[in-house]
């Protein structure tokens, strides 16, 4: 048996993703965001989280998915990795799940290209339900973003 993990489950489109709970500080409803000019397009700006200014990024934009309108379900997940605090805008977040690390497989080969780097693995919860485990430090890796941006240019 592997280790027991607690993960926060959130949705982007039809896919479900997981972040280890100890990396998540809080989950907030949508709130006013102050735009920061001249930064990456997926950085929506900064918010005031109880006196601390925290940048928020649209995770759809970060993964190259089409960005959508924010709804009542939209949440900001505040994560802290490598002393960086960042908010992720996700379509919805409403589940906490216990996982055994045994059920997490390495990312399947079919997921190729840049996107594979963001994945820590895929957890099989049931026959139909797969949970994509995020590799947070890669998601927040800025040097790689710079490369990505220059590719797009």
């Amino acid at each position, binding site marked *: 048996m592997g280790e027991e993990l607690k993960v926060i489950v959130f949705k982007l489109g039809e896919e479900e993703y997981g972040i280890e709970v100890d990396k998540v500080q809080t989950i907030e409803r949508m709130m*006013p965001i*102050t*735009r*920061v*000019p*001249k*930064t990456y397009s997926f*950085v929506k*700006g*900064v*918010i*005031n989280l109880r*006196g*601390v*200014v*925290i*940048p928020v*990024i649209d995770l759809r934009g970060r993964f190259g998915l089409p960005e959508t309108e924010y709804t009542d379900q939209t949440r900001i997940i505040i994560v802290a990795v490598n*002393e*960086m*605090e*960042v908010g992720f805008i996700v379509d919805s977040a409403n589940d906490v799940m216990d996982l055994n690390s045994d059920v997490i497989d390495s990312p399947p080969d079919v997921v190729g290209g840049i996107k594979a780097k963001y994945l820590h693995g895929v957890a099989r919860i049931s026959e139909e339900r797969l949970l994509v485990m995020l590799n947070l430090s890669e998601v*927040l890796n*800025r040097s790689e973003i710079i490369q990505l941006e220059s590719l797009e240019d």
Partner: protein
Amino acid sequence: MDMNQYLSMFIDESNDHLQSLNENMLELEKAPDDIGIVQIIFRSAHTLKGMAATMGFEDLSSLTHQMENVLDLVRNEKLKMQDYIFDTLFKSLDALQMMVQDIMNGGDGKADVQSIVTSLQAIVRGEIPGGADSAASSQAAPAAKTASTGIQLDEFQYSVLEQSITEGHKVLYIEVAIREDCQLKAARAYLVFDLLERYGEVVKSHPSVQEIEQEKFERSFSLYYITQKDAAELQSMIVNLSEIESAQVMPLDHETLNQLSSGVQEAAAAGTAEAPATAAAAAPSDVKPEAPQTAAKAEAKTGARANGGAAPSRTIRVDIERLDVLMNLLSELLIDRSRLEQLAHEIKRSDLTETVEHMSRVGSDLQNIVLKLRMVPIDTVFSRFPRMVRDVAKSLDKKIDLVILGAETELDRTVIDEIGDPLVHLLRNAVDHGIEPTAQRIAAGKPETGTVQLRAFHSGNHVFIEIEDDGGGIDRDKILNKALKNGIVTQSEAATMSDEQVYMLLFAAGFSTAEVISDISGRGVGLDVVRSKIESLSGVVSVTSTLGKGTKFSVQLPLTLSIISAMLIKVGSEKYAIPLSSIVETGIIQRNQIRSVHGYTMVPYRDAHIPLMSLANLFEVADFDENAEEETEIVVIRKGERLAALTIEDFIGQSEIVIKNLGKYLPQVQGVAGATILGDGQVALIVDPNAFIK
């Protein structure tokens, strides 16, 4: 006893003493015959020794002890200061510094200082390599040893004696010898004490009264005595007692008391924790008791304490982390304050408004105080430079005068902590590369001694630090050639670069103009590190130079990094804060005033035209376009001498804002200096106008 609680105090004070030792040694080097300075140095060393011994740092205290032995000879004019002694003492100071550093880092302050100790001991024995006075001092040394008798007084006793002298009592030092054939020494001694106690007060005796009672003394004992009787009268009274061989009675004044009880004052200074040893030393004749225990006694006697003398210290040391916490709490309070102000404005109830207004005033005062608490004179950084420049100059065999101006200029603690290293680098640079070798200076018709000026001054909300040398200046071509060789610039770029741009190449990574990499500059850290450090403090560094005349490095730093006054403005649906420090004035311009000059938009301002920029354009604001407006609000901003105007949509008002950073995730955004939280809880970006004026 748990020493930990005293450790931080010990470290702080040791550093102070080391600093003062360094400074005074440098002074002494300029005037080697000034015994006054030697006294100051001796006292500092003595205090340090005492403190280290108390705290159980044996190596520290024994090294200081050796230094003291040398200094003792010097102050008694048994030994003349000379280069070798200076070098050895400086070496000792460095070793002490390292030990204290080690203690600071949690170590036990132990170090192998045998070679220094040996040198110091050799000096005391008069063995000075190449020294001319060695013969004289070798004889003097043992003499000095025997001469320095006297009873060790503790600080309390010392101050009692001091006080008594000040108040006009007679303070006597008495040495009584009992006849060799005396049968009952203790009894005779008792008679002497009995007699003395009838006419005055015995403050301290050696051996102690108990030891004398138990006959634990040879033939003589000595004591400090306060009385109204005449010295001669007392002497005859003592000698008249049977079996007393002799009695020497010596009246004391401030100075002789000080000499006899050498080192007592230092102990006093150490005890009161804050009394600067130098102040005590500078005015030895009117030292007032500083130990708290003596206060009651002193007041009971007369009010002499009140008139003049060294005032008791009125400062306390505060852990910087506590100040940081205070600052954070204050920023929370400021944010809530603006929120309250806004609510009061909306609710419009006069008693609420009044209360909030009062709270605002109290808040502003509080803020001023807290900010001032965090201000530290830059002297704390500057003071370590004279020693460093001396060492570097000496190792390069150059003669250099370091002139420090504006050391009292105050800066926020956070900036002070960071600015030391870059300045060290710039100073080394000035000494190493700036000032030419002596021969070259003479050939160029310059004074033999080079001058490096280190200046600090305030200007607006900034502090400027300048390092200027009168050396050879920067050779533009040399730098360009080197930059071309290293591939930092291309030939075509080089052709169009201004002098200033060329000088800035010095700050490029991996750039060194030194032909030979010297001990001082060849340490793998270049000016690029200096620049990035200064920029991380939101500062700017620039260079100006005249070939043959000298070079000036100028560093511009923000005064504080936390709370500023700002003008809140609106552009479309967005709000921004512009620091008041860079605003010259605000105004309204008409559309037809805008001119196009050489492709730039300009507006008339006073007698000139200044560039006009649109904040909406610079920040790509989507929902505002001033081109549709007939009249436009502008903010005239300033960077140094240069002015520019920013067009905005509307002014909201002036406000104190707390600077918050944008978080580690976001890269540096040009034109944005940070963010702040407004009264309504929204985040507003702080505009950095400096970025817009090139």
